[in-house]
């Protein structure tokens, strides 16, 4: 398959799958972004780290997909196990993030304008990168479709290129998340974001454990 056609297909697949990607990443991305400092630059920095790590996850998956050609024949059980591990790790990172974000608001006070968020200018991006990497391994249907197409490429480089184009297509949908930087940060916003992170982490944890134990999540 010509490279351009392949890249175009991946890009269109990514663009079409964007809403599904932001829906899948929203529970992780929105609360963690809300614990960051307000403003365009901190959010751009966070999103860059998140997306770069997500690209890494994509690339890793592309290599595996091409090398093993496994996705097309991937059995439900190992896929469930992999998802279970990813969910448990995601829950762990979210809980850690919620805990570490307690210092985001350095001066507890009633007046939001007096609250200074994120005293440290260069707050570590390990959390953003971890979350990005783990969501990059999320086996949502468009991602699996991209994996199958990548596995059919003529070389590993083509598979990597396919996933890179797919990544670009989906990443455009993440740009609106920068608007969260406009929300004024106060003690209330930080607390709400942290609590939401804990709730979401508990959901992922329960789902992850259920998947690892081989329990049916749906079908009640």
């Amino acid at each position: 398959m010509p490279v351009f056609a392949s890249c175009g297909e991946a890009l269109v697949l990514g663009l079409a799958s964007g809403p599904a990607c932001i829906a899948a990443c929203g529970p992780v991305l929105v609360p963690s972004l809300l614990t960051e400092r307000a403003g365009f630059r901190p959010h751009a920095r966070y999103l860059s780290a998140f997306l770069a790590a997500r690209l890494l996850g994509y690339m890793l998956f592309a290599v595996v997909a091409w090398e093993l050609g496994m996705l097309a024949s991937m059995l439900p059980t190992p896929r469930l196990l992999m998802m279970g591990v990813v969910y448990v790790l995601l829950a762990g990172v979210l809980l850690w993030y919620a805990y570490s974000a307690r210092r985001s608001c350095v001066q507890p006070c009633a007046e939001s304008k007096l609250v200074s968020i994120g005293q440290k200018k260069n707050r570590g991006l390990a959390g953003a990168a971890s979350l990005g990497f783990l969501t990059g391994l999320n086996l949502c249907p468009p991602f699996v479709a991209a994996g199958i197409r990548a596995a059919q490429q003529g070389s590993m480089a083509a598979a990597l290129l396919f996933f890179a184009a797919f990544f670009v297509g989906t990443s455009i949908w993440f740009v609106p998340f920068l608007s969260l930087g406009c929300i004024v940060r106060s003690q209330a916003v930080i607390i709400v974001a942290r609590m939401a992170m804990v709730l979401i982490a508990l959901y992922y944890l329960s789902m992850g454990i259920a998947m690892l134990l081989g329990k049916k999540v749906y079908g009640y």
Partner: protein
Amino acid sequence: MATEARILPFARPAPRGIVWSLFLTLPILIWSLLMMIFHPGASPDPLSRISGVITALFMTTLFFMMMRTHSTYRWRRIFFVSLGVLFPIGFIHNLYVMRGSMGIPIEEMIAGRTPFCFMPIPLLILPAAFTKTVIFPGSIGSSSHGIASMVGLWLALTLVMGKGWCSYACFFGGIEEGVAAIPARAKIRKLDPRLRYVPWAVLLAMVLLSLAIFEPAYCMWLCPFKAVTEYVAARNTIGLVQNAIFVLLFAGLVIVLPFLTKKRTQCSWFCPFGAFQSIFNKISIFEMRIDKDRCKPCLLCQNACPNLSLSKESIAHGETLLSCMKCGACVDACPRQAIVWHIKGTQIAWKPERARLMFLYSAWALAVMFGGSIIAQGITTILHFIV
């Protein structure tokens, strides 16, 4: 106008005359009769007719007492607790008649046979915006088209009343309000103010998760009222876990904590729909205001508020918090009449009784239309058991 505000008496006003109170009640009487007895869809069943009459009289009498005594909260509470208690009775009876069980299997859900509830409304917005799909496959009566009209009706009423919905229309809050009324004094008095943020966190988490998993996450995992309405038919471990969560949340937030704190803890500390409704308090023209010139402050209002919607800071600012449900408890509790019903854009304490009447007419019209029909259904169910 300022002079008029200052000459408001500090003592509670004397009861209104019976004739004048009856005159003020007349619109509600007519509305109740129209809604409960004379509407075209009224059931020909004699027991339904009887329950309609009882409900119309009940709602009209309560409104009359509000007019006569100038007191709002205690009469509203009688209605609200009745609604909270009678709703599960009628609802569960209907489920047994239709399905033979309170548990809903997945096939029934997919077929859209889940009775529609307003709680997932905030969870529907993002999936509907992205995919034009309603992720709550519910129905009203025999038609799924009713959902759009239900959401439209909710929106119209919410724009007028703001979070007043939670005091005059929600059929869930009555149970905890009833439980909170039982003890004479609260056993737990010191409440962490940060708990007020939990409903917002639940709202944020549930909205995001609902979009991610494409189903109303709150209804599937966290709704305490599944314990007394329609739970998930448990066919596996996950189903059992879900039901255990429902029962534990109901026991904790609707029974135990309201008894210990004398507050509506589920509404104050958990309900994501309540948090969502709070946003509309910014739009609603009705609000509660505190006349700082008259306020002592004795904090009786803060203690009386069932929803933790007053803090020392907000009282100092002369206003309630965003979560105010406009139930009137603070107004009734204030010995100096410093808290008043207020219409935005007017001066504080300018003809507060007029503002109260304007709010109560719209709120009680909603209560009769929405809650009244539920109360009537509950009474019909009881009558069917007795007769």
